[in-house]
């Protein structure tokens, strides 16, 4: 390979190029792909030509159309399955092969390393796709495929492929960090990610290109603005891909022990919330848009709270202070390392508070979006009371959950804080079963769950629950509503206080243990 043009190339891309696409392999792939394409084309033409009732033009169109669909399927398999699967293996392979330690020490910037891995991991897939694409264009032209449809599918393939690859790369970097415990069976990650890519392609394709012609005129709403579903799907894929790439760069930094700044995480939360609220926004919904009633505001709000709860749970699981981190915190040093460690711990805590703040801000914004009618409607509970109660319930639940996860992180569990996450999920599942088995549906077990609580106190509310009727007698009476509101908050408050108590006792005990061990 000529070294003059390679001298300025990203070394990681060049290495991947040399390893995955040496000249002989390129020749083999090229020849075999072209032969296979010709064979497939021949088969389709043979099939079309055998239909004597069709004119030659119709036969050509039929063969072209068949080839178009086949190549589309192949391109989907390449870009949504093969490329993300190989990307998902890139860092893991380095770890298994024993070369990751060299990457930890190299002076190539994490961004350049991530770019190198990104491009390098998709080389074979993109090369084959590039070989196929001209045939795809020609078959679309011969098959008389609608031009707009063709452009949309091509864009979908490109953006979706890059997004899946970026996510695959992020998963790979996340699973090949300094802790090696996830690496048992690490090579399975590739096929798993590939399989998920296939499912994603299937689901998103169904949303973006529905079979039903009427559904083609569907509009999704983003802050009330009507958009074609495929545009929303494309935008979401770009959003996911970009953040997955940022996540990869940060994971590389973690492996190289480069201190991380917290603001990208805040920005991620803020931008994700902005997108989520935009999609759930109903401020501009009109009564004649019947489909909106399938998802009343409370369902959207519960969905919003569920996603936020899950995100905060993951954040708590990943940033809870293990005994190791607490040992760093309590080490009496005032040197740069100790200051850095303390700053990281502080950043983790601040990030959690910021994320909760963003969550509550989003909740308020979404709430405002559901209450935009000019003329006030009769309600069982005032707006502001409902909002404050839901916000307080969510905050109490999240606070209790965080300290419980921290409590578990201080135990000697093998999976650390994630045991707390698992136990929290189990607790709410058990509470859900208990609640469902009781006759009175507004029982304590049910109201402990902030999602059920939000649904309960807004039941029958004309803004949140019943768009089609303003009948005051339809919902619960105000006394019942106030009673459920107080009942739920007290139950959640007691649970949170219990978690705080547990965590406090364990915290003191851990501090004593660690200080004793250190001396």
């Amino acid at each position: 390979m000529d070294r003059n043009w390679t001298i300025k190339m990203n070394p990681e891309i060049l290495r991947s190029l040399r390893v995955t696409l040496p000249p002989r392999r390129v020749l083999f792939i090229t020849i075999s792909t072209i032969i296979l394409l010709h064979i497939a084309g021949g088969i389709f033409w043979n099939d079309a030509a055998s239909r004597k009732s069709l004119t030659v033009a119709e036969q050509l169109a039929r063969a072209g159309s068949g080839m178009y669909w086949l190549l589309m399927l192949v391109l989907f398999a390449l870009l949504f399955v093969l490329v993300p699967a190989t990307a998902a293996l890139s860092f893991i392979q380095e770890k298994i092969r024993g070369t990751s330690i060299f990457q930890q020490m190299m002076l190539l910037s994490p961004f350049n390393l991530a770019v190198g891995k990104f491009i390098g991991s998709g080389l074979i897939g993109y090369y084959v796709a590039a070989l196929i694409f001209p045939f795809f264009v020609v078959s679309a032209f011969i098959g008389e495929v609608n031009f707009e449809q063709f452009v949309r599918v091509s864009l979908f393939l490109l953006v979706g492929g890059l997004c899946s690859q970026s996510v695959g790369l992020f998963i790979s970097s996340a699973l090949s960090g300094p802790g090696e415990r996830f690496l048992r069976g690490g090579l399975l990650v590739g096929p798993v990610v590939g399989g998920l890519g296939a499912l994603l392609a299937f689901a998103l394709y169904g949303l973006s290109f529905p079979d039903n012609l009427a559904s083609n005129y569907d509009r999704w709403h983003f802050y009330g603005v009507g958009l074609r579903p495929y545009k929303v799907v494309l935008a979401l894929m770009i959003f996911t891909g970009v953040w997955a790439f940022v996540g990869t760069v940060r994971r590389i930094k973690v492996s190289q022990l480069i201190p991380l700044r917290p603001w990208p995480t805040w920005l991620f939360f803020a931008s994700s919330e902005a997108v989520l609220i935009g999609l759930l926004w109903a401020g501009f919904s009109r009564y004649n848009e019947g489909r909106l009633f399938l998802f009343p505001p409370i369902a959207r709000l519960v969905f919003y709270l569920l996603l936020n709860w899950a995100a905060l749970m993951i954040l708590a699981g990943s940033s809870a202070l293990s005994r190791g981190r607490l040992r760093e915190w309590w080490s009496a040093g005032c040197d740069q390392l100790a200051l850095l460690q303390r700053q990281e711990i502080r950043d983790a805590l601040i990030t959690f508070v910021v994320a909760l703040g963003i969550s509550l801000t989003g909740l308020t914004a979404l709430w405002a979006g559901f209450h935009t009618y000019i003329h006030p409607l009769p309600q069982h509970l005032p707006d502001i009371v409902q909002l404050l109660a839901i916000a307080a319930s969510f905050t109490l639940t999240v606070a209790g959950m965080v300290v419980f996860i921290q409590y578990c992180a201080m135990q000697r569990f093998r999976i650390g804080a994630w045991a707390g996450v698992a136990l929290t999920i189990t607790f709410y599942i058990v509470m859900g079963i208990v609640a469902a088995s009781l006759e009175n549906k507004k029982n304590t077990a049910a109201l402990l769950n902030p999602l059920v609580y939000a649904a309960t106190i807004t039941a029958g509310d004309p803004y949140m629950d019943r768009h089609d009727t303003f009948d005051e007698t339809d919902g619960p009476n105000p006394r019942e509503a106030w009673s459920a509101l107080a009942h739920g908050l007290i139950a959640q408050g007691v649970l949170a206080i219990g978690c705080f108590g547990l965590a406090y006792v364990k915290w003191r005990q851990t501090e004593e243990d660690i200080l004793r061990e250190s001396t």
Partner: protein
Amino acid sequence: MISTFDLTKYYDTKPAVRDVDLYVSHGEICGLIGPNGAGKTTLLKMLAGLLRPTSGKIEVDRIEVGAEPKLLHEIVGYVPDTFGLYDELSVRQFLEYFARAHGVAASLIRKRIASVLELTNLTSKLEAAVGSLSRGMRQRLVIAKTLLHAPKVLLLDEPASGLDPLARIELRDLISELGRLGTTLVVSSHILTELEDFCTSVVIMEQGHVIRAGRIEELIETIRGGLHVRIETVDEAAAQRLSKELGGRADLKNISVNQLTLDCIFDGDRAALARLHRELVTTEEGVVSFYERRLTIEDVFMAVGSHKVS
């Protein structure tokens, strides 16, 4: 060049390295000795900026490790005990990749590759596939790769493990050569006698602690306590008889018998030792040889360590 202060590393609740204070001066070749689990690899990884200490401080060439990992990696090279290579690449491509990844200027790459290959005696393998190299060559290739960015400090973790005798001799020569060129080296090894050939100082670790550190001669001096004598006999019975006979002497202590040999410490000067020699030769206890044994780092290790594995 390298200093650590109260360096401690816990893996969860298990201490791997505890309160290590270490000083390695510029151009020194420091051997790191200890049983498995002593904390040698953990210590080396912390020095290389690959592992963050739980507490304490490390300075390498006045750079505080932890705060500026990239700056540290510019001056430190680390050769791990186990590693993999990109077997599909040729030696030239492999070294080019790392040279560029370490920011070596494009105009210098060829020259730098030629010089590290010459130093590691791999020049003839320039176009060979990495996968075709022997274990010893791979070890030297990794050292060559590590030297590409001319690190001031080189950390080698068990570099001789798995090498055949010839490859070990080549490695020893290479390490000595690097020391002569002014590189500060820290080398961990189980093979104590090998370290003695090229190390100027040693650090003995056990259960995460440094139990002795210093120049080899100084450490040997601390355990000397007299002249170490080894007597070889014709058979085991003779060794046992001689041991009983010598046991009554006031100028001999720490008598130990190991099959045909008898080791002891003689408390007296060399003239007195010569008299003892004469006495033993004239007795009919079957003495085959008698000599003052030169103390090695192995003796220091055996004398100061409890030989427990953490």
